[in-house]
């Protein structure tokens, strides 16, 4: 079974703090994704990576950056957290061979106060 894990289930940070969210997958997938989930908006893509050190912006990259130094690990960084970044963050991974589904981690609920 594919397993995607995220470093924290719940996180509370203060405005202006630097925040790291980490995601690890164990299926040797090429692609990894970060989404944020907000009520009524579904999942919106923040960034994705298709290989080590390779990344592309998604639909809402402002205020975020990412890092992929190893194939299995994909980090989302909030350089200076703001209250409008309070959300559920979901990590996913997929193979690059064929039109296959994405596999999701359990999510991190981030609250910025």
């Amino acid at each position, binding site marked *: 079974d594919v397993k995607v894990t995220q470093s924290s289930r719940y996180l509370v940070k203060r405005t202006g703090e630097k925040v790291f969210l980490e995601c690890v997958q164990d299926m040797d997938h090429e692609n990894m994704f970060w989404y944020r989930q907000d009520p009524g908006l579904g999942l919106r893509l923040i960034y994705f990576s298709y290989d080590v050190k390779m990344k592309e912006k998604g639909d809402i990259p402002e205020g975020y950056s990412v890092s992929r130094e190893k194939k299995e690990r994909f980090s989302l960084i909030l350089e200076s957290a703001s209250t409008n970044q309070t959300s559920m963050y979901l990590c996913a991974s*997929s193979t690059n061979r064929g039109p296959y589904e994405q596999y*999701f981690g359990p*999510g991190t609920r981030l609250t910025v106060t």
Partner: protein
Amino acid sequence: AQSVTQLDSQVPVFEEAPVELRCNYSSSVSVYLFWYVQYPNQGLQLLLKYLSGSTLVKGINGFEAEFNKSQTSFHLRKPSVHISDTAEYFCAVRRGGGYNKLIFGAGTRLAVHP
């Protein structure tokens, strides 16, 4: 450009009743469609997918969906729901440009009442 519209934000239903969750898509590329389920405080889990072939797709937990190209729809159905089906359901379509990127709908919250 691709997009996904889930026509109902909430669907209340009684246990053992049938349910249909509606999804319409637009896509200018080959269509690959997915339904995911999210139980409370969990990540998303794949229910079923349409890649090609038969337009009726069967998934886990007794769910099925029908791909209708002329109506650009991919509605999810279950003939008899259980309390445990209470969850949020997301329809998604694969984007163009490779890498298996998806576009998700806004979600439909299914509430099953006893």
